[in-house]
């Protein structure tokens, strides 16, 4: 083998997979066709535009920097790759009150608004793809039970209502205390980088996760960003029927 042959061989053996598997897919995924609604199945036409809220860009970056992606995934795999879609709350809900069966596998647009898709490395902790939605469902159930207990209208619970933001802050600050209270195990660490200590000025802050001796622990900007990102992790909205795993067509696109 001469050096020349060696280099030609090397360029070919590396260049071809580099082109086919990396460079060309990277370039062509930039201009993927947007999915369209189908008149016959969705009863409407037009381009499907996924909508997201919350501080997705900054939140996603902080999520990555803090290494949340090491223990949490955000992907629901098709059945050839795993049973994710059957786990309640991961890819959606089987019996969502409003939308019926919202379970589906992950799609490329599920990570719109983020620079880098936080697919995740392992499931030491639960999948977070629909974490925001699970929180909402939990809050609704809690509020319903509380309303019954207190004999109030569910809309008039006021301070008795489940405060989603505070719940997330508490979990981020000290998951172990939360876990003990709810008899759950967790191996999530305390994320104190998201919080600052400040003296209590007047009334305690609404979002203080702890108050000790006139010093309260409140979320800082980093904490607010990640909280906003987390509570808006919802991937169970309306999508074209071709992507909906078990959509009940009779329920329609509500």
């Amino acid at each position, binding site marked *: 083998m001469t050096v020349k042959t060696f280099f030609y061989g090397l360029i070919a053996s590396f260049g071809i997979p580099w082109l086919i*598997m990396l460079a060309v897919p990277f370039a062509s995924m930039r201009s993927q066709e947007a999915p369209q609604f189908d008149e016959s199945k969705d009863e409407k036409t037009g381009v499907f535009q996924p909508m997201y809220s919350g501080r997705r860009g900054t939140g996603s970056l902080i999520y*990555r*920097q803090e290494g949340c992606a090491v223990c949490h995934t955000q992907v629901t795999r098709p059945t050839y790759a795993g049973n994710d879609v059957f786990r309640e709350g991961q890819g959606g809900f089987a019996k969502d009150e409003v939308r019926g069966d919202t379970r589906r596998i992950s799609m490329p647009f599920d990570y719109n608004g983020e620079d880098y*898709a936080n697919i995740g490395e392992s499931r030491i902790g639960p999948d977070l793809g629909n974490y925001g939605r699970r929180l909402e469902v939990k809050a609704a159930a809690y509020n319903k039970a509380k309303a019954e207990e207190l004999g109030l209208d569910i809309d008039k619970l006021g301070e008795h209502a489940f405060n989603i933001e505070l719940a997330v802050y508490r979990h981020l600050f000290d998951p172990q205390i939360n876990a003990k209270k709810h008899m759950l*195990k*967790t191996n999530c*660490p305390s994320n104190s980088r998201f919080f600052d200590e400040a003296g209590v000025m007047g009334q305690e802050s609404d979002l203080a996760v702890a108050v000790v001796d006139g010093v309260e622990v409140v979320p800082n900007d*980093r904490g607010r960003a990640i909280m906003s990102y987390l509570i808006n992790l919802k991937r169970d909205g309306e999508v074209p029927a071709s992507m909906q795993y078990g959509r009940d067509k009779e329920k329609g696109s509500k």
Partner: protein
Amino acid sequence: MSTETNSPYLEDTQLRADIDRSLRHPVMFFFTSGAAWLAVSLVLGILFSAKVHSPGFLDGCSFLNTGVLYQAHLSTMIYGWGAQAAFGVIIWLMSRLSRQECKASGLILTAGHVWNACIAIGTIRILMGEGSGVAWMYFPKFIWPVLLAIYFFIGIWAVIAFRVRRGGHIYISQWYLMATLFWFPWVFISGHLFAIGYLGEGHEMMATAASAWYRSALMFLFFTPVAIASAYYIAPKVTGRPVYSYNLALFGFWALAIVGPWTGFQRLMGAPIPSFMQFLSAGAAILMLIPAIAVAINILKTASAKKDAMAHSPSLRFTVAGVVGLLVFAALGALMSVPGVMKYTQFSTAQYGLEITGLLGFFSMCMYGAIYFIVPRITNREWISVGLIRQHFWLTVYGVLFIAIFYTLGGGFLHGEILENVNESQDSAYTRLFPYAVSLTTGFIFILIATFFFCCHLLLMWLRLGRRSSHPTLLVRHAHGSPHGPEGDLDKLENLDSNLSTH
């Protein structure tokens, strides 16, 4: 200078000694600092795995969050230890095989210092929560171009040495090293541009896919060929026999070159990337068995020609263990790329366990073998303690096997099985994970102790406190006469056969 002693053999020995002397500082620096980073990495790894099974451990210190610990641990292992050990081996091996003294040692040494500074700054930034968060590229963005530039100023001298070598036979190790030197910049630049540089300008899924490709490409096209090149040098050198089959060696090289770049995307099986990428990568990961088996046959056949050499020579022992590690790594990787199996192992403990098996069980073992061979030559001293070498070997093997069996296989499948069972809650998954996380901590502790011995030993050698002797330090147990083996010339003893090699 008497003329009758100017035989070719003496000239060659003199040349080899000159080469070793010219490379003493940069190579010793790479090995010592690499070993120190390995120790740091293992400490971080222990902290990480301790927090997985005992989350309250070191709570309240935001610098020691589970996620950032993992990122810092992997970064220091790959770029602090792995890259530096590889650089040391590359420049020494290429100089020796091409019979060229290194004329840029000062520059390489400076580059090495800058590399270390970058790793240190990058690691601190990761712990502060300011890394990039991208898998295997955790350092902040500004570090990458600097690392690339440093690589150029280290690697180019090896390329020049190859180019100006005397004509004649090109050793298989030289082919592997040239390929590594060529692959690394292409892999590094592509990976970093597509996964970090072009963030926001491409589809976010493809950024993730690029990082998945990068980690596989770095493993198979940088760490693997360097380790194999070292094995192809050590085995014939120590046994005094030529490589079992040069043709098989070439076949193994081209198999690696052709199959290696296709792997990587199987990690994203089921993620929303084009399915052809997922399945082609899975197939390629299974086909990686071919180059692994080719290399293993060659090295093991070469080494078994002199069975007592394997028992007595630390370099050969570590190298052979490394090659066995390659087989295990390739087999586990192939098993875990079968989609049916991947259902369980994709997000369980298996993937990380596989990476550790590859990095510590295969690559590091081959590097230890090379280091135990090279350091006496460049420092002109022999290793001080047989006991330390033995402890290093057995504790590392024990630790790696512990992790491979319990964390990778046991944890991988049993934790994965619970994750797949949709009726089981996250609680049970955590309970199931617990013992396997403990096994990881235990394995790391063994390896850390081994590394500690290794670092001490290496530090003593760096301080020129090794034995002044012409007998190599062999792993014999007080055989006839001197415990350090028979009297004789250093190189002659390594080539126990009277057939003198021309390496």
